[in-house]
C-alpha cells in the first residue's frame, strides 16, 4: 500500500551553505530498510524538483536509523543572501515527510 513517509519516519532540516540538509529517521529498523531502499537520491531530487536545483547527495547512519540528504542549491542563494521566506530550509524536513512510499499491506505504521 502507499502511505505518507511521515507514518514511518520523522525528519529535521537546516541550512548548509547554498543548500539544505534533510535528515530522515525511521521509527523502527523495519522502517529504516524501507527508507534506505526507496529514498534514493533521484527520488528525493524529483520530490524537491521545484525547490532544489542542484545535486542531491545521500549519507547513511544505520545506527541512528537515519538517512541524511544534502539538497544543493535549494535556498535561493545561501541563508543570508536569500529573499525566500524559508531561507534556511527549515521546512524541507516536513516536505520530505509528505513523500508517498510503498509498504507491505500488513506493515505496522508508527505514527
Amino acid at each position, binding site marked *: 500500500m502507499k502511505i505518507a513517509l*511521515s507514518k514511518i519516519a*520523522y*525528519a*529535521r*532540516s*537546516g*541550512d*548548509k*551553505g*547554498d543548500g539544505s*540538509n534533510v*535528515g*530522515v*529517521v525511521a*521509527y523502527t529498523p523495519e522502517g529504516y530498510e524501507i527508507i534506505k531502499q526507496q529514498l534514493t537520491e533521484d527520488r528525493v531530487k524529483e*520530490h*524537491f*524538483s*521545484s*525547490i532544489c536545483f542542484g545535486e542531491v547527495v545521500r*549519507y*547513511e*547512519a*544505520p*545506527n*541512528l*536509523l*537515519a538517512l*541524511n540528504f*544534502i539538497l544543493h542549491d535549494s535556498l535561493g*542563494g*545561501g*541563508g*543570508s*543572501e536569500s*529573499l*525566500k*521566506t*524559508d531561507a534556511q530550509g*527549515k*521546512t524541507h*524536513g*516536513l*516536505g520530505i*515527510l*509528505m*513523500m508517498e512510499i510503498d509498504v507491505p499491506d500488513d506493515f505496522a505504521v508508527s*505514527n
Partner: protein
Amino acid sequence: MPNREKVLIANGQGFWGDSILGPVRLVNEGPLDYLTLDYLAEVTMSIMQKLKSRNPEMGYATDFVRMIERVLPQCREKGIKIVANAGGVNPQACRAAVADVVKKLGISGVRIGVVEGDDILADLKLLIDGGEPFNNMDTGEPLAPYLDQVQSANVYIGAEPIVEALQQDADIVISGRATDPSVVLAPMMYEFGWTMDDYDLLAAGTIAGHIVECGSQCTGGNYANWRNVPDMARMGYPVIEANPDGTFAVTKHENTGGLVTVETVTSQLVYEMGDPARYITPDCIADFTSIQLKQDGENRVAVSGIKGAPATDTYKVSMAYHSGYKIVGQLTVAGPDAVDKAKLCADIVFDRVAMDGCEFAPDERFVEIVGTNVCHAGIAAAPAEPAEVVLRVGAKGNDKKKLERLGMEIVPLVTSGPPGVTGFAGGRPKASDIISYWPALMKKDKIKCTVSVEEVK
C-alpha cells in the same frame, strides 16, 4: 585522575537572540555544574564587526552581560561555572562589561577568563602574502580579489584554550569564535583530565555538544511529532550528565515541559549534518555512525559507543563579505481572487519602476505569494483559492538606489491597485546589505590563541 565522577553541563543559548529564559531557568530549576552558551552564527560575526567599527566598546553578545546580571548570584551559590563564546569580535570589551556587572552585584572572588586569537580580520593580507589563499570551500576561488569586501574573518577555535582558562580557575570563560560543541567539550576535558590524544572521548564530548548546541531543539523543540511534546511553553533546556569514560546521558530538569526521547535526540543529531562519518571540528573528527542511543527512563537518553579520529591540521575560517544589496516588501491581499490580485500587484510594481527608468529583467524579480504553498512548492498541493495571501516582492543587486526605488512602489498599491490590499504597517522597505559567507581552511600552526584569567577587583 578525574576531578569528579560526573559533570552536569547544560546549554542555555543556541544563538544571539535566543530566549533569556533558557539560562535563567537552567540555574533555577535544578542541579548544574556548568552553564554553556553559544551566541555565534556565521552572520553574527559580521554584525559584531560592524557594531565594533561604530563603537570600539561593542562587538560582543550584549545579551550575555544582561544574562550574567540575572544568574550570577545563583551560580555562585550553587558553584556553577559559565563558558560562552559571547566575546564575539571583542572578548576584552565583553570581559570589561561583565566585570562591571560583577562589581555592581557586589560579588567578590569572581575570576573571568578570556580566550582570544580567533579574529584574523586585521591579518588577512599578511596571511595571504604568507601563502594562505583562503580558497572558498564551495567554489574553489581564492579570496584575494574579494579582500576589500571582507567584513569579518574568524577561525573556529577548539576546546583547548578554554580548558586552559578553567585550569587557571576561571569561573566565567569568555571566548571569541570557539565552535558550539567546543564550549561543551572543554568542561569535560578539564574535569576528567582528557587530553588531545583521547580521540574517542573528544568525539563523545563533541557529540554531546552538538546535541545541546541548539538548546531545546533536542528536548522537543522543532520535533516532527509536536503533538506528543507536553507543556512546550515550559520546555526544559537540555542537561548532559557526562561520565569520565565518554558515555553520557541527555536529560532535562524535573518538572519542566518538553520531551527527551531517542527520537528528539536523534532529530538534533541529524540537524545541519554533512557526512555523518566525518563530523570535523578543531578538536577531533567525530563519527556519528558509531553513536548508540538508548531510552534510559523518562526524559533520559543514554549515549555510548562513540568513536573519533584525530583532528585535521587545518582550522576552518568563517568569513563574511559584502556582496551587494537586497530589498523585500510585503502586502496582504484579501480575497476574493487573492492570488490573481497578488500577481497583478507584483506586475504593477515592476511596470511602474520601469516607467521611471528602473528596469528589472524577469529573472531579477523576486515574487513570493505566501499562502500558495511557497515552502513546499511542488510537493503539497496549493490551495485552490486561499482566503488571503501575503505578497512579498523584491530584488537583489549592486545598485542600492535602484532597489530603494523599487521599495517605494510597493505601499502605493493600497490605493492604486486592485481592492483588498492591506497589511502595509511595516511601511516602505529599505535595501539592506547582503553579507555572504566565505568558508575556507588555513593551517593551524599560524594561529596562536591567548588565555588570560583575572579576578575582578
